[in-house]
């Protein structure tokens, strides 16, 4: 079954490349607008050799990791606070959904004014993108905990920090993972979007360089890399984490 699925995927991607090459060979558009798969591959290869690609990937991933870590920590804290304290939910909670609807890159102008063209500014945009998704899912998760779990834990003497770390967080964990999955994806968009505007290293910067040089291969190559990183992070980290948690919680 797994082999079959892999074969299907391989065939699909090969077909894309074949069609792409076919369109290129048909000479409908000039190569400066529509490059061949080979051109894009060559751009990636050069980038890998001179190290600029790795620097770009490394820089963007660093920013993502830093922003995501802050958002995950803050989002969990805020979500629990909202779920457990009625007043917090009625006040802060009411604007979280509104904040969530702001596209992460719309935070970039504010970040530039506050932090200048720095890493901190880009990380700020990433946090703004990821934080509210984690918050909302944590809130929902804590609200859906079987009240008997909390009563039983309190009955056995758990309170304060112990109640949070030993009951609330593990009980809400399946929801936290949903929050992480959404949060990192929003955060990743934030990183790339901010890098486009900040023009200060990273994959978004390399993408913008491609546009400035009218190098369409560079543009497509960077988009490809951004997408592949998305697939890898989701599949390698979050999908695995999710499977593990679902199995352990007996949800599957």
């Amino acid at each position: 079954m797994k082999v079959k699925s892999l074969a299907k995927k391989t065939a699909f991607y090969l077909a894309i490349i074949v069609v792409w090459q076919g369109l290129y060979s048909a000479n409908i558009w000039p190569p400066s607008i529509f490059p061949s798969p080979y051109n894009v591959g060559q751009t990636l290869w050069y980038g890998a050799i001179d190290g600029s690609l790795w620097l770009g990937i490394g820089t963007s991933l660093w920013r993502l990791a830093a922003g995501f870590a802050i958002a995950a920590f803050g989002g969990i804290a805020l979500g629990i606070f909202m779920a457990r304290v009625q007043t917090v939910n009625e006040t802060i909670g009411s604007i979280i959904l509104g904040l969530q609807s702001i596209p992460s890159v719309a935070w970039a102008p504010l970040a530039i004014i506050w932090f200048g063209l720095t890493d901190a500014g880009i990380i700020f945009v990433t946090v703004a993108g990821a934080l509210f998704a984690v918050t909302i899912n944590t809130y929902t998760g804590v609200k859906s905990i079987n009240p008997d779990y909390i009563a039983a834990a309190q009955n056995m003497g758990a309170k304060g920090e112990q109640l949070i770390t030993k009951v609330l967080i593990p009980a809400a964990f399946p929801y936290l993972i949903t929050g992480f999955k959404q949060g990192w994806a929003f955060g990743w968009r934030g990183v790339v979007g901010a890098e486009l505007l900040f023009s200060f290293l990273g994959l978004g910067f390399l993408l913008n360089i491609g546009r400035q040089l009218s190098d369409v291969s560079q543009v497509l190559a960077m988009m490809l890399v951004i997408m592949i990183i998305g697939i890898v992070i989701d599949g390698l980290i979050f999908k695995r984490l999710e499977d593990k948690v679902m199995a352990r919680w007996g949800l599957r």
Partner: protein
Amino acid sequence: MAKLEAKNIVKYFDHDGQPLKALGGINFTVEEGDFVCLVGPSGCGKSTFLRIAAGLQKPDEGQILLDNRPITKTGPDRIMVFQEGALFPWLKVRDNVEFGLKIAGIPETERHQISDRYLDMMQLSKFANSYTYQLSTGMRQRVAIARALVMDPEILLMDEPFAALDAQTRDLLLVEMQMIWQKTKKTIIFVTHSISESTVLGNKVVVFTHRPSTIKKIIPIDHPRPRLAEDETLIQYQKEISALLRPEVKATEEKS
């Protein structure tokens, strides 16, 4: 001396924004080492009474005294066993059983010694490393009982713990529950909707009236253990309790 004393406990439910008097002044006493079963029509507030005794809810009037001190908050001296067990699905059986000990900061080797003893008593030793979803409902309730017993509470509060079990498993656990009580000499308050269960387990059966409920009668069950539900003497008791409950159930039906 009275271990636990309920003094005029009154509790209102919120019924679509209207206060509904559920407990209308509950008074009774539980002696040290008693096995007291509470029976009553559904919705009469017997489970609520248990939660008040556990300190998980507050009464609107009156108070419950434990060793002459009023109960104000929840604590491990009164451990509750929930109807659905309320076991933590993210923990293995052993970690579930040791949860309260860990909260109390008891070191690992000591925790293991204590949990081993109760896992053995509840015949759970070979499931120590299983997750709770891998167990049958009956096994899960054994884990819940073990988790309560490790805390060595003054009083064990059990809220219909066998209600979701099939008949065979329940019969087995009824026998074991009597042995646990005899072995540990715990004071137990046990809420049930099953009259036969109450006569098998309790040395006192407390019969609640319909809402706003008060105590209708307290019946001491005088019969040697181990008891079985079909014992002749117990059937006489069951008939008596049934007769007491019939008008209460009828009144409850008519109200809803």
